[in-house]
């Protein structure tokens, strides 16, 4: 098979082709290594690992030949550079981790390799996953493979898992890991026209994933189709005794649970997600989604999530408070960057000033402020109360409905530099995604249509805790109904 033909296969199809020995894992890995190289102008990868990919592919071929295939054998995947990978540079998109090669492998990537997946490399991201546009990385911005036909300006892929989203959309990976603290899987999935799932908090281990905000960080999969995401999630999920917040619950066969009909399923439509200034085309797409689900036999129910408007401020207090503490370990003493100074305090100051970018510094400062004496009750404690109320909103909604449908983001991808002036405007990108992080419930974004200027738009399905199966099932119905077959302007292999 030619490279373009190999790259055109989705994960499920590639798995099928590998099992039937239509092509070897090595051929597939080589095609993807070429794709990674071809996609270099997107800056989606910080560290490609082509040799490792070939070596892992050879091992997969051995197992495939012996009929001992593992669930993901030979499937080339990209890893967000927030996951620690043993012996491979791990940067978190930050200069402060200069030269850092972890002596350990994150639980989630370890599970992927144990499932036979092949590592293509480490993908770019907003520094420490702090951003919604993938423009804060020390390694430079990632370009969205999509462009507006009208002006052809480079667009952001969304963030913070922008490199992963761009790589999957540009066919430079079959699937990728992302992390989602306030929307960092779903929003870039929406911007790049792919599927992204933020699982339930505790479903995928955080061990070995560089922390941004521990109580909100959710590792999760990104892929071309809902089925691909279901397959990848199955390999990533599971209880990990090394993460105290990992849930000791069994992992169902998500793929096998797809395809059921959704007859009689109640779909909540939260009126609070109709925010001022949202483009009418997004509202129209949302309405279209409601209709698709209705015609598939589901019952739309208008619901209220009254605390929604407090979610964004509560998120930016809790996330930043945790971040300010989580990032204290980057002090120049044990690993990564060190800038020498005349005193200990000066070494700290110079190292952290040189190592952290402006957005990280801003968030560390805000986080430090909201935890400081005299402000803790007014900010952090109040935000935690809001968080409890938001979780209660979802809990009571899920007494009436089986899942909730909303837009993923209030806009399509924007141009690089377009929104960098005002951090608040950037933060508003997370308005629909943040509540699910605060509540810890699963949520997916699925591409549902194009904006007026030709860019992908996603719809979000939010489900009950540990009910990713229903989220994926509904997402697949939407995927089928939308029959989103559009390709970005750039795809490796030229598209076919």
């Amino acid at each position: 098979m030619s490279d373009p033909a190999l790259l055109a296969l989705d994960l499920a199809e590639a798995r099928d082709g590998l099992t039937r020995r239509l092509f070897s894992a090595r051929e597939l890995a080589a095609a993807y290594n070429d794709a990674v190289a071809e996609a270099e102008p997107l800056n989606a990868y910080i560290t490609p690992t082509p040799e490792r990919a070939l070596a892992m592919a050879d091992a997969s071929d051995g197992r495939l030949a012996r009929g001992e295939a593992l669930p993901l054998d030979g499937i080339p995947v990209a890893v967000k550079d927030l996951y620690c990978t043993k012996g491979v540079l791990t940067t978190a998109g930050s200069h402060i981790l200069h030269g850092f090669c972890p002596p350990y492998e994150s639980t989630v990537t370890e599970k992927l390799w144990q499932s036979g997946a092949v590592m293509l490399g480490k993908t770019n991201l907003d520094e420490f996953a702090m951003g919604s546009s993938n423009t804060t990385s020390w390694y430079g911005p990632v370009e969205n493979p999509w462009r507006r036909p009208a002006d052809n300006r480079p667009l952001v892929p969304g963030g913070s898992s922008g490199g992963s989203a761009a790589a999957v959309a540009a066919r430079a990976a079959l699937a990728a890991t992302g992390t989602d603290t306030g929307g960092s899987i779903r929003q870039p999935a929406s911007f790049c026209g792919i599927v992204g799932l933020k699982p339930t908090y505790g479903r995928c281990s955080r061990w070995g994933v560089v922390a941004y905000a521990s109580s909100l960080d959710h590792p999760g999969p990104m892929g071309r189709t809902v089925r691909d995401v279901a397959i990848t999630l199955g390999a990533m999920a599971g209880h990990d005794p090394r993460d105290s917040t990992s849930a000791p619950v069994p992992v169902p066969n998500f793929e096998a649970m797809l395809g059921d009909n959704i007859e009689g399923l109640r779909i909540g439509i939260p009126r609070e997600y109709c925010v001022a200034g949202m483009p009418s085309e997004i509202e129209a797409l949302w309405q279209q989604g409601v209709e698709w689900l209705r015609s598939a036999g589901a019952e739309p129910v208008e619901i209220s999530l009254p605390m929604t408007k407090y979610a964004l401020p509560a998120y930016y207090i809790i996330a930043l408070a945790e971040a300010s503490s989580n990032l204290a370990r980057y002090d120049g003493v044990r690993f990564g960057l060190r800038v020498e100074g005349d005193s200990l305090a000066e070494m700290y100051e110079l190292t952290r000033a040189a190592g952290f970018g402006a957005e990280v510094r801003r968030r560390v400062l805000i986080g430090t402020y909201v935890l400081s004496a005299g402000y803790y009750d007014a900010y952090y404690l109040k935000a935690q109360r809001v968080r409890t109320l938001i979780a209660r909103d979802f809990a009571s909604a899920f007494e009436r409905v089986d899942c909730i449908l909303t837009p993923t983001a209030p806009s399509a991808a924007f141009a690089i530099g377009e929104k960098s002036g005002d951090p608040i405007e950037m933060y508003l990108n997370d308005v629909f995604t943040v509540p699910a992080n605060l509540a810890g419930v699963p949520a997916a974004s699925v591409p549902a249509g194009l904006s007026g200027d030709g860019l992908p738009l996603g719809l979000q399905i939010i489900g009950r805790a540990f009910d990713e199966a229903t989220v994926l099932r509904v997402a697949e119905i939407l995927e089928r109904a939308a029959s989103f077959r559009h390709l970005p302007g750039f795809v490796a292999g030229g598209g076919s």
Partner: protein
Amino acid sequence: MIESRTGKWETVIGLEIHAQVVSKAKLFSGAGTDFGAEPNTQVSPVDAAFPGMLPVINRFCVEQAVRTGLGLAAEINSASVFERKNYFYPDLPAGYQISQYLHPVVGRGRISLDMPDGTVREIGITRLHLEQDAGKSLHDQHPTVTYIDLNRAGIALMEIVSEPDLRSAEEAGVYLRKLRSILRYLGTCDGNMEEGSLRCDCNISVRRPGEALGTRCEIKNLNSIRHVMQAIDHEARRQIELIEEGGRIEQQTRLFDVGRGITRPMRSKEEAHDYRYFPDPDLLPLVLDPDWVERIRVDLPELPDAKKARFMSEYGLSAADAGVLVAEKETALFFERVVEGRDAKAAANWVMGDLFGALNRLGIGIGRSPVSAGQLGALIDLIADGTVSGRLAKDVFAEMVAIGSDPAAIVAAKGLRQVTDRAAIETAIDTVLAAQADKVAEYRAGRDKLYGFFVGQIMRATQGKANPAVVNQLLKKKLAG
């Protein structure tokens, strides 16, 4: 009370003890805890706060904290919370210490102190919480570079906070000894202050009797009971002098200068850290199963207070003797092995008298005693059955300390067996009296004091082996004529 030129002052003291938990692994990682290991050999990526590493609570350390709480008659909180105490220091790898703040694992408890004057003082325990130790900065390896040893980083500590119930350096010393004794009985902390397993911060203020509490100063990181007592004495006098000279006490953190025996300021309230405590999002609240706590309670060993009461009732010992014998767990165990089936008073006297004396001279603890409890018991048996005299037993004991053999072997080898053969003793008496005929005459004329002289001569003639009771009986008869 301290009497000064302006009248009486009362010192008010509260102690915060950091006790290293006896555990093979650290509080949140599987790394080892051996004291004295090569630097940075007992460190996991969790302890070094590498990116993405997460803490997992060590169940055994929690068990040790609960056991300690139960030993201090304290409330065990069924739910407690680990929080982050944030500050930057090179030996604090994460930039925060995981500790407990608003919700400690152990609440209010108490310790009763036996004061030397015979009174008993009840001291309140405010709380006990679990926290991580920091690493160690080594400033003496290089003229301009500080090295970091993370072996200690992450080791479990119990911070045990007392109420401000102590009133003198002496009470603080008794409190520390008692707390250390309880921890050792429980096996939850080895109490080795010189190895840093037990460290103490003192909060000290002074006031006129009956008045409200004064402003306190905290003296950090004292690592011997003697230093604690010296620091308290110095700090109380410093505060009194300052107030008497019209000054005001400023709330301060101070250090004790061991060389000069004084305290000096470390940082003032304004320079105090803002630790920005908040619940550690990497850890769930610690919830204890009441049945599990109950099982720990049931398995608690007998503690010093209970043991003392039992020594008094079971062995008829005085409060003072019982107190000395139970103060250290090893001493109490030693004594109990010695006393088994023997006269308690004799056992107590031998342990507290000759044995303690010998150990003191050798400068070693009872754990390394050259005489085992079994050997000491055997010696007491030899006295009881008349094999050796009490006087010769002292020589036998000295030999036991020197060469560590069994008393029976020493008695046999040295021929120290007591002579009770009346004929042999009578012969010895006759020989002495014949040689001292003039003294016999003086005695019979009324110089009673000479009796002791005759006994001494007879014992010398028998190399001390004659049974004193038989000697007395026969000598009196002979002298009476």
